[in-house]
């Protein structure tokens, strides 16, 4: 995130910006991770005597007049494919985050095999994850002129702090309330910076914005645009219609009525509340160059209300006897965080949970569109207002956050792969299975950095006057009302027959 006192950083227009400017470097490092993950994806092993379905179908069809039934018979002949038949990256077993634990934190460092029940240590994989992240980032730091060797000790300590943050977040009681690792990363950093102060040797590795931008390029690969249509017309109406309306209305409300001093804080809160919580806050915060304190404020608000809503909303739904499909759509459209949506939906019923996660998945995918739109709006309108004169196209290009291009490109490439063929979809799944772990670590690093660079005194003004809280509450109230109306209209009236209500 932007430094609280820094001006907007405009990259140099020379060709050296491609390797000296953090935005471009984030694109290259993200692309490198995606490339490595893609290259390590192995095709499923095929035993020598195993024949493909088509050839077996041909054999069966010799005695059958109907080729379709032959294929069905052939499918019956072939034993079910083993789990390893799915393409998988050989890197996957080396990229981990600590597991869940209930009473003993040491359990977080062991994985339990579901079949045999044996426990294996996660420490080698956790160390390998750290190493795989260290090398490209240390190299990038060296190339950008911030030092290669100086980066390493700071990074190692930050890796340890991120590990601690994960262990705090994976305690089962904490986890069930969706109090995500970013919150504990922030807390760990804040405790250090506000007690003994952040040691100077950590400074070269404290590049939270760089971790966020790289993580967002990786997140782009998880945004598969085909899933925007997962629920057809009802999904479009609930997610595509309500989400932008709430986002824009809340932003205008914050600017015009609440007169928020910072439009970027207004935008980050509006986006995390209307789209999908922390991930939307991170993406839009980077797109509108929000300050790190603004991101912390928005994430704190979002997680607090998520924990509250995931308990209260199912109680209200049960109390009023709301239909489970309408309830699922309402939960999916309103609770910020994805995991919380799944948990709250499940509290209502299995079916409600399924509808809720699909609605939330569509909103998750929408953050690609929202982040791109916010970046364009900020570069062409908000920064123009600050500057006072109309910028040229070249100026707009220079100000545009370039990592957004990597984010959008990753999304388009992986969406194309996933929609093009079943093999492409399997390949995309296997690649993303690796990069999502790296992305998780990068976001955790980013919030540890934000904590280490933030003093409580600098956070206080962002909560002063309670405007962020008022904005969130008003925006969320509108979101609750509109989502309920649209869920009822779509699943309770228009498509009532088709969903068997």
């Amino acid at each position: 995130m932007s430094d609280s006192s820094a001006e907007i950083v405009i990259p140099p227009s020379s060709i050296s910006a491609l390797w000296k400017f953090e935005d471009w470097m984030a694109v290259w490092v993200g692309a490198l991770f995606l490339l490595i993950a893609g290259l390590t994806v192995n095709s499923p092993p095929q035993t020598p005597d195993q024949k493909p379905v088509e050839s077996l179908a041909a054999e069966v069809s010799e005695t059958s007049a109907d080729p379709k039934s032959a294929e069905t018979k052939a499918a019956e002949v072939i034993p079910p494919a083993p789990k390893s038949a799915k393409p998988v990256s050989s890197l996957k077993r080396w990229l981990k985050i600590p597991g869940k634990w209930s009473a003993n934190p040491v359990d977080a460092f062991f994985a339990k095999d579901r079949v045999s029940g044996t426990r294996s240590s996660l420490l080698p994989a956790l160390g390998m994850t750290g190493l795989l992240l260290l090398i490209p980032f240390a190299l990038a730091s060296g190339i950008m002129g911030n030092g290669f060797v100086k980066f390493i000790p700071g990074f190692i300590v930050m890796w340890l702090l991120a590990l601690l943050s994960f262990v705090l977040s994976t305690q089962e009681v904490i986890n069930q309330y969706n109090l995500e690792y970013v919150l504990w990363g922030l807390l760990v950093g804040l405790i250090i910076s506000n007690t003994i102060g952040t040691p100077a040797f950590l400074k070269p590795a404290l590049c939270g914005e760089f971790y966020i931008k790289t993580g967002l390029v990786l997140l782009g690969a998880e945004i598969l645009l085909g899933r925007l249509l997962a629920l057809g017309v009802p999904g479009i109406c609930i997610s595509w219609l309500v989400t932008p309306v709430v986002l824009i209305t809340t932003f205008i409300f914050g600017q015009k009525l609440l007169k928020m001093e910072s439009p970027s804080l207004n935008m980050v809160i509006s986006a995390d509340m209307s789209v999908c919580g922390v991930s939307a806050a991170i993406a839009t915060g980077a797109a509108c160059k929000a300050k790190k304190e603004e991101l912390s404020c928005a994430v704190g608000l979002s997680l607090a209300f998520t924990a509250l809503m995931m308990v209260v909303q199912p109680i209200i739904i049960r109390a009023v006897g709301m239909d489970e499909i309408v309830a699922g759509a309402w939960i999916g459209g309103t609770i910020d965080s994805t995991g919380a949506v799944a948990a709250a939906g499940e509290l209502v019923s299995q079916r409600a949970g399924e509808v809720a996660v699909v609605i939330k998945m569509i909103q998750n995918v929408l953050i690609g569109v929202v982040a791109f739109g916010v970046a364009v709006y900020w570069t062409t309108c908000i920064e123009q207002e600050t500057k006072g004169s109309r910028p040229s196209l070249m100026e707009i290009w220079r100000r545009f956050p370039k990592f957004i291009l990597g984010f959008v490109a990753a999304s388009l490439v992986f969406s194309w792969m996933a929609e093009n063929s079943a093999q492409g979809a399997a390949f995309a799944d296997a690649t993303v299975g690796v990069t999502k772990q790296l992305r998780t670590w990068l976001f955790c690093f980013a919030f540890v950095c934000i904590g280490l660079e933030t003093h409580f005194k600098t956070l206080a003004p962002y909560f002063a006057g309670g405007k962020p809280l008022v904005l969130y509450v008003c925006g969320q109230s509108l979101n609750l009302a509109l989502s309920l109306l649209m869920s009822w209209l779509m699943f309770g009236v228009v498509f009532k027959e088709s969903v068997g209500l």
Partner: protein
Amino acid sequence: MNPSTPSAGGYWKLLASTMAVLVIWLGVLPWIGQLAPVEQHLQTLRDSHVDAGAMFYSELDPRVFPDREALREFLHSRSARTLTRHSPPPSHD
């Protein structure tokens, strides 16, 4: 950021904060987790393969998503009344 030399008071504050974290995470939270309603809720989430801490849909267990075909039927056919699991749209695992 405050890179100045830490004071003794700073170390005491760090120690106190660490102790508070240890007491909460090693004492209070495990105790809450053992309370019958909480334990039951946690078991329900485990049985349903729900990771309540997921930030993005790709972090959820694919089993929490409805089957793609069943979903299509569910939306387009008047006779579809049930959703099955186990063949989800996002299978990033």
